[in-house]
């Protein structure tokens, strides 16, 4: 038994990355970046509002949080839809009580199915982020360029129909095809939240120009900590708190830091979890950080 000789050849072994999307750069060497308001630590809250289709195709894989049982999976369908009927309203009330801004990443299907919710979110004036068509519309190589472009433009236009044209994008399951960044740039998006390789915004090359990548702190997401790792609500609050403390200790005017926190209406909006979210919001309010929308994060990054 042996492997093909190409397995011991390394054509992309070269200085920097093994692709051409961005140069390698370490966080501590970045050029100075200044958040609006001048505080060294910025926090950005993104709430995902999602629709998980009952007739899940699972291409190219079953989305985390998606349907699990034989068709029709009433339990997971309705449990996720709870986020759009109950959870999101609790989240909005908690945000308003804390006096904190948030942005909302919305599947186009939610706008279609929940017009009152869509109008309410648009009327708040918070930033709305295109989050694809729905959670079973994963971007992958098998789609082909034309279909993927159509999906991206449809998701953009669904948001543009209820408010300003969106500047930001979050792929369902953060899954991209090799062309997604190019198509996002060509569809007018200024930033994407899919790449999780950093803690600050950075320029990401596409075939016709560049887009800003803003990494989310995936391993602090409500879904990751409480549903994937099965840690308690209290532990989630502790972990985010510890992250705020650490980033705050590192942040300085010449080397600012950023916490991008993604939560899901169907996760933190549950009755037994919303108190933890409220506790966390109070902690964030005390952090001495500036609360930024992702487009402000992207704009600050573009100036650095």
């Amino acid at each position, binding site marked *: *038994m042996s492997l093909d000789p190409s397995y011991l050849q390394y054509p992309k072994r070269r200085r920097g990355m093994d692709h051409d999307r961005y140069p390698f750069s*370490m966080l*501590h060497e970045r050029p100075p970046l200044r958040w609006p308001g001048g505080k060294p630590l910025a926090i950005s809250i993104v709430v995902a509002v999602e629709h998980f289709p009952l007739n899940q195709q699972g291409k190219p894989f079953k989305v985390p949080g998606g349907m699990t049982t034989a068709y029709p999976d009433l339990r997971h369908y309705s449990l996720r839809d709870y986020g759009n009927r109950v959870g999101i309203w609790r989240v909005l009330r908690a945000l308003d009580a804390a006096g904190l801004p948030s942005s909302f990443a919305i599947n186009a299907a939610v706008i279609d199915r929940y017009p009152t919710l869509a109008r309410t979110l648009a009327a708040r004036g918070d930033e709305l982020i295109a989050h694809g068509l729905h959670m079973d519309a994963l971007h992958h*190589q098998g789609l082909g360029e034309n279909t993927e472009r159509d999906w991206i433009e449809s998701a953009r236009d669904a948001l543009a129909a209820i408010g300003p044209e969106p500047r930001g994008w979050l792929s369902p399951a953060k*899954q991209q095809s090799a062309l997604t960044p190019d198509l996002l740039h060509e569809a007018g998006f200024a930033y994407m939240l899919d790449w*999780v390789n950093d803690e600050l915004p950075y320029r990401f090359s596409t075939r016709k120009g560049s887009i800003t990548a803003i990494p989310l*702190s995936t391993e602090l997401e409500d879904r990751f900590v409480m549903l994937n790792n099965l840690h308690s609500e209290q532990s989630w609050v502790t*972990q985010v708190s*510890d992250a705020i403390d*650490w980033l705050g200790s590192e942040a300085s005017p010449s080397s600012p830091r950023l916490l991008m926190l993604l939560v899901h209406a169907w996760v933190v909006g549950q009755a037994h979890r919303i108190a933890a979210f409220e506790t966390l919001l109070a902690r964030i309010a005390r952090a001495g950080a500036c609360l930024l929308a992702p487009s402000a994060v992207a704009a600050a990054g573009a100036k650095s």
Partner: protein
Amino acid sequence: MKPALDYYEDAPYFQRPRIEWPGGKRLALWIAPNLEFYELDPPANPQRAAWPRPFPDIDGYGTRDYGNRVGAERLMRVLDGYPTRVSVSLSTALCIHHPEIIEMGLNRDWEYFSHGIYNTRYAYGMDEAQEREMIAESMALIAEHTGQHCDGYLAPALTHTESSLDLFAELGGLYTCDLFHDDQPTPIRTRSGARFVSVPYSLEMNDTIVYVVNKIEPRRYGEMLKAHFDRLYQEGADSGTVMCIPLHPYQVSHPHRIAAFRDALDYICGHDGVWHATAREIARHYLDRYWHGA
């Protein structure tokens, strides 16, 4: 396939010749950051997929890239506050991709040992000549880019063949990190009869196993490190023990995890009986004094 490994002899833990560490220390502590490079689009291996998602798996790739862009330097700054000695398990292609990280480690007098070429190139399916070539090239990369002789080996992504340890010993290696059978160094029998030893690494204390496989809370990881240390330190009063803390900058350096690690390190380094050593120093001390008698 063999029913069992035959690298080492039966040697009941409390009935061995006493190991004494330099200066009468009880416990040899070594810190083992895995500095790795994962390829976005590696060639397929017949026995293991590199990524769970289809190309491009930007989730898996980005998670690892974070370790090099953010995690490595954050970990260095924490370690700079302690007398610990560091031995790096190195994806040796990192010497070419990110020489600035290698340089930062050299400035701290870190040891480098081989963790293969890439953590997305597995030994599974290689014939012996291929695996020898891969290991030898990784050792050559370390020599060329760090000036160090590569004395240790941890197989890339822990992918082994029946020949892996034999090959590394024949190529001039001194120690393996691929065996998890003991808390003390163990003489390892390889086919060449070379002087060769297992230096305890650890899966139980490995941050990736802790966080990804066992899904442990960050602060509990800190408590586990302290408990592991306490027992080995206690036992080390009778015969020297080894504690390794294997780390990955893409795991331990997240801002919600790094403080728990620092607190454990703070506790451990508060004990006088700790020999802060590299894996190479532990291996040589053992080989020079105890290998023949064990």
